């Protein structure tokens, strides 16, 4: 069934926000709001959110994806994912107004958008379910994140790195492996104290209490080759409250072993869209 995309502009406070509505010919009462994380905007890395919205809308669910204030095309000051509750509420208002017959929404989010959803979901009765992918639980921009996102990427953009690669790729590969090994060790070492009672980070605590209050179905999707997902699983695995939460019958858990943080291959993207669609129709 062919869906149709419509542009949507709405306000949050005095700022104008922009989004895209993917509408099925006959929308069901449950819609999906895609929340955008990290430095992305509403199309998503390698257009993951654009393609996901079209996939779900072809299956009969209305989908809205939007830029919150200070991101992408939207107006306003940039803000942290811990401070987007007003944006989410405004987007759900706009979504409901734009799609007559819509009665409830599922919030779908990757990385720190998943964290924002975990904190928000229980505060809004219109949220019927949540899909969290590779939730972000790091409370500081520590060494590991810097290694992965900055240092490593910087090396990839460095011509000297490529000259070395062309001369002898095995040495370079080994050094990369050892660098990643160090990053993993660093993450494991840092995750454990954070999970204990000594010095709990503020927002992972808020995520947990948010999810404890939320009664709707939860779909968790993890990438096997992602340190963000690994850190979440380490944190949750070391905390009895998280363990009880994740073992509950309303929680469905999926893992894509080969996938990276953003599901950067068509096969992985399609698998995520398929899992999401199947889960949406299962309750």
């Amino acid at each position, binding site marked *: 069934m062919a869906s149709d*995309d*419509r*542009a*949507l*502009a709405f306000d949050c406070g005095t700022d*104008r926000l*922009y989004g*895209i509505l993917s509408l099925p010919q006959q929308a069901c009462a449950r819609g999906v709001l895609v929340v955008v994380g990290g*430095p*992305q*905007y*509403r*199309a*998503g*890395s*390698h*257009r*993951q959110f*654009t*393609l996901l919205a079209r996939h779900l809308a072809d299956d009969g669910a209305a989908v809205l994806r939007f830029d919150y204030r*200070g*991101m*992408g*095309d*939207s*107006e306003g000051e*940039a803000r942290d994912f811990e401070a987007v509750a007003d944006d989410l509420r405004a987007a759900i208002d706009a979504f409901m107004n734009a799609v007559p017959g819509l009665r409830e929404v599922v919030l779908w989010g990757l990385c720190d958008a998943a964290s924002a959803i975990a904190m928000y979901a229980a505060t809004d009765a219109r949220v019927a379910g949540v899909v969290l992918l590779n939730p972000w639980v790091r409370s500081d921009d520590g060494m590991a994140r810097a290694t992965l*996102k*900055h240092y490593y*990427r910087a090396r*990839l*953009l460095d011509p000297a790195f*490529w000259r070395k*690669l*062309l001369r002898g*790729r*095995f040495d*370079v*590969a*080994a050094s*990369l*492996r050892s660098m*990643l090994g160090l990053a993993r060790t660093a993450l494991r070492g840092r995750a454990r104290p954070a999970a204990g009672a000594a010095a709990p980070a503020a927002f992972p605590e808020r995520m947990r209490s948010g999810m404890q209050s939320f009664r709707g179905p939860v779909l968790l999707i993890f990438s096997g*080759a992602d340190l963000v997902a690994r850190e979440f699983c380490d944190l949750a695995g070391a905390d009895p409250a998280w363990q009880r939460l994740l073992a509950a019958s309303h929680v469905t858990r999926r893992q894509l072993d*080969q996938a*990276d943080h*953003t*599901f*950067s*291959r*068509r096969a992985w*993207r399609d698998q995520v869209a398929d899992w999401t669609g199947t889960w949406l129709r299962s309750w």
Partner: protein
Amino acid sequence: MSSAPVRPAAQAEPFFLDGAPGRRFCLFHPPAGTCRGALLYVHPFAEEMNRSRRMAALQARALAQQGYGVLQIDLYGCGDSSGDFGDARWDIWKDDLARGAAWLAAHCGQPLTLWGLRLGALLALDYARAAAHPVAHPIAHPITSMLLWQPVTKGTSYLTQFLRLRLAGELLDSGAAQGGTDALRQALRAGETVEIAGYDLAPQLAAALDGLPALEAMAPSCPVHWFEAVSAAGGASATGGAGGALPAGAARVAAAWRERGVDLHLHALPGAPFWATPETTVNADWLAATCAAMERRETEQHDGV
């Protein structure tokens, strides 16, 4: 600034523009006050488009505030527009620019400035080249100036850099990259679509990038403002300086264009490459310098008359 607008620009209007095939997402920033001119923004390639989205939006709003009507258009297979990235073709993208230019002419009716970032700048230049051959490729809406943001200077080198992202992915997965960019190019030449960093690259699009002439040979016939990010240590001047800190490739092109009489204004600005940084980067000096260049362009035009 005697012509400064007295009221703020209206909020941007998002819409879909009919195109064949499909539709293109557009965001129009109406000018504050009397319209002084129209700008068409041409976004960069693949993930660079996403990373620079914020800078593009901030610049578009600033230019609208200054009295320009600005149209952002998502090219076919990109952003919120129809189609898959793997269906995108260079010629469809040039048609998209013609569509955007026609829309602006109908809604602003003012001289057109093309504003392109990275590969978008190269696309804008290639589109503008058609103006030199009006019989073969009629351009209904003449281009009176161009803003080039860090233009890609060679399509084939840019393609090589893009292909390297795939090798980097293979290194991470298995510790070794199979073949090299040559092997990927061979696959493309054999008609295969290759997936790179989540984007399907069609052999036709790759061939178009490989077949583009170098920038030296694409000298535009209108005035150009060229913005290039240089490392802060370079100490380049912020306004139309000699550009001593420019990368060699850009400097070569600039020299070639000047030799051919192009009215070229170079702006070498310190700052991170905002189209590539992992976190969203905003460069306020870059935004201000672009607004100043548009202001100056207008003054010069008036002086010229």
